[in-house]
């Protein structure tokens, strides 16, 4: 099927397909989200439910050689989340295993 027949006209149509589906969202500041997408708008503001946020904290270990960093991962969960669009880098369906 070609994209026209699918009704895919613009990038947002692809996001629309993921409505009420679980999505993976990459955010600025080394953050990632997975949650169920409920709504979005032209600014890529998102409303997600059942969200798990993953925060990458890069620590430069003191005394360690340059470029040798450790990455700590912090996770937290939220029932419902409003994501402001200016922080969104990427929205995609979660990788299916």
């Amino acid at each position: 099927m070609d994209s026209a027949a699918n009704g895919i006209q613009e990038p947002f149509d692809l996001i629309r397909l993921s409505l009420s589906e679980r999505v993976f969202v990459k955010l600025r500041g080394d953050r990632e989200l997975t949650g169920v997408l409920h709504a979005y708008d032209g600014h890529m503001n998102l409303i997600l439910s059942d969200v798990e946020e993953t925060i990458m904290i890069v620590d430069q270990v003191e005394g360690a050689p340059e470029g040798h960093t450790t990455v700590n991962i912090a996770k937290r969960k939220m029932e419902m989340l409003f994501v402001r669009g200016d922080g969104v880098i990427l929205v995609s369906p979660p990788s299916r295993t």
Partner: protein
Amino acid sequence: MSFFGFEQQQDLENEKRKFLEGGLSGAPQDDVAVFTWGEDSYDGLGDALQEGGDELNDETFGISGPVGKDFDFSGTALPEHEKPTPSQASHTQQAHQQAQQPSQASQNAQSSRENDPSHASHLDAVWSNKSPFSVLPRSNGSSRAHDQLGNSASKSSSLAPSVPQSTSMQKPASLSLGPDLHKGVHTLEEIEREMRAAAAAQHQQQLQQRQREEEEQLRLQQAQQQFEQLQLQQQLLHQQQSQSQLSNQALLQSPSRTHAPRQVPGPQHAAATPPPRMHPHSQSPRFHQQQQQHQIHLLQMQQQQQQRQLLELQEQRERQQRQQLLELQEQLRLEEMERQQQQHRMQQQQMHAGVNELMQSHLIHQRLNSGGLSPAFDNRARRVGRQSPLMTPPIPVDVPFAQNMQYLPQNIQMQQRLLAEMAQAEFLNTMQGASLPERETRESREMQEILRVEAMRKIMEAERMEEKRKRKLDKIAHMSRYNDLMTQSDKDFITRIQVSQLVTQDPYADDFYAQVYGAILRSRMGLPTSEDRVLKFGSGGGVGLGLGQKVPGRRQSAMQRMEAQVERIVNNARLREKEKSSLNNLQGALGRTAGRSYKAAPRQLLQVDSNNVSTSPTVSHASAAHISKSDAAKAQEEGEGAAREAAKIGREALRNASDSTGLVHRDPLTHREALVKLEQLYDLVLDLEQRRRDQPSPEEVEEFEQWYVYETQECSALIDQLFEQLMVSVPLEISTPHPFISLITPIKGKKLLPRVARLLDNDRMQILLTLLVACFSQLDVVLQAPLLDTLEETREVKDLESQTQAFLGSVVQSILPVIAKAQMRLVTGLFGLLLDRNDIVAIARTRPGIALLTLFLSRAEVILQNVANGSEVDETPTPDELQSWCVMLYNHLFELLRPHLPLLFPSVRLSMLSGVNFTNIPNSDAIDQPVWQFFASLACSANDAQQQVLVGGLRDVVLENVTTATKGLGLESEEQRRLRLANVNLFLHALGLDSSQIVV
């Protein structure tokens, strides 16, 4: 009197002449007098003479007054005090002697009077003590002269009608000595003259007494005249005051106008550090307007402040007046007592005169009663008792700037006038009767109290209002700091951008939730569910207005303003679009962005509309960003056409495929494809639902019918399309899973089904149901159901759980009415299909499977009972159907499930996995409940042998449950126990048993 006065006059004249002629001969007298001036015993009489006695001197010496007056012996036109009594004569003589240059003194007085600008000539009467009541004490300093006059002349002069003159009557000798005592040193001549005068007075006492009666009468007349005169003066005063007030206001306004801009902080500040756009030429007209408004505000504020001041002043004055009134009353009472005493004495002394007096008083009474006095006087006398005109609050605020000293005299005059009125009233009252004044005084006091309270209340109110207003002004001032940072064109520019973001092709849909929520709210509040709160434009564009504002006011008007603005902007954009329609404008447009830098949504100057626009509302979204895309509606129509075309092609392709080979296997729909199709389906469903909402009210018959005919056609076409897109009619074997199953795999697909079910007729729903039953084991919720048999809480489990819930809540609920109406034939057919195409044991271990089986079994049971009752006539199943149900299907199902009966319970399965006893599985009762229901329905249709099998198979589970429930082992709450027992009983009751029969 005439001869008496004449004599006096002659005396005075003599004195004068003597004084003028003999400056030298009078020297020793002068010396004596001079010596007294600096001494301690000096009592200020000289001052009194100089300041207070001017009139007397003037009259006496004929300097200021016309001479003719002195010789008006009839005395009718002459004020009482001008008529010299012997004592007065002597006193004036002394005064003459004391005052070295009386003429100069009088001149001084006169000049000082003339110097005072506020002393208009007609006010002189008030000032010059011609009123008989002006001797009364005053609290202010301006009446010093009167006080002194009262002191010095109270014994001698006849200014006060009651007290002073009576004393002069009683004790002539002491009277003559009175002033002398103060003086200390007397010349022989003086003493001699006084003695002579005293002797003459004593001699003429009887005569004098009679004369006094006459005088009294005369005085009354004069008082009346004077009063009338006073009234006239009052009127004049009022006029003058109002004039002065006017001028004052003018004065007030003009300075405030000039002051106002100085007090405006905002613009001033802005002017000090002007923002870039604050140059005069770029200032919007609203700026000036606002400045003016600001000034007006300030003006109002000042005026209000003034009013407040006036209020305070008024109150103050009232207080003063009250005090004065009290004093006055006290004084009057004293005077009254004194007078009575005196009269008593007089009567004793002059019994013969008593008759006269009686006559006199009778006469006065008559005069008073018969209205001999002027009506105005009478009225006033009556009114004054209750309230003076000054005390009534609503009188025009007469003295605007009370603090200014130049207005004080007027104020005092008013008070004096008031007091005079009151005194007069008192006087009259005392003449009329004793009880009257007391009552009236009380009344007036009460009235005053009421007025005071009223005034206080008003002041408080005014202060509150003032406070409120001040806060508001502060707020406005605070906000106005940023006034006019933007010009009107700036604002318009921003508004245009904002509005361009708001305008969409389908305002209702874009504002859908607010609209629906608003409608629900309105209906809940009992308001008429009015039409959509949407602002529409001619060519299909519009703005959703969100929830309706309940409070009309600023917001409302702002809304209206926005509407007008949006309308204007849209129209302008449309006009511009028309101008641009010629291709010339597009020269060199390739790759450029449109004129203005809409940074939010840059737009290419050259926009090519593709023909294959889908029906997706995202189109409206895309085009909404640019209002200028006026033909979006047309494009949408084209898009719909294209979509329809595409659907038709697809259908044909499908038909061809199925026609040619009968069975064409295709790859199942990918997840993405399913999602895409779902979006299309949602669009269709939303469209259909919107059409239903647009339905005109059935009352408008014609319109409704027209709509109905049209819409039914449209809708049926759309529903056809919908049904096709659901892929229900696609052969079962086309793919695994079936496309329809793929469609309801995402949770939104499941949730779509009830909405679709509302639109589809029963036949189509039966087809759908058949497909669902046939492909039941392909469902994700069935396939993955074993994953749920775990105690872990992974996200997959949670997702599957929510999917299962969605399936039960949406899909099963939407097929429920179909099954509930299904005839026996359909039930047997579907049941057979289910058994045939699915692994029934596997299905029975899933919650959706249990639910479906329970549905079929209970429906079959209902039909069988109806047959037994003979109630369901038209649905009577044929014996063949019954036979097939009982023998083929039910028995088959039973046999299939027989070895796995306990395993149908999720709790049992969980306990097998986890090793925990199934009774201890958390929440086991809740998850087991559907299974108990299934067994109950199974037991209903079971024969005796089957029942035995059921009881045997479930024996352990039942016993364990009953034991734990009754003993309460491992069960926290009573509620849990009851639930467990209820579950067991559900099954046992179907068998005709009860948990209580089980002896543990």
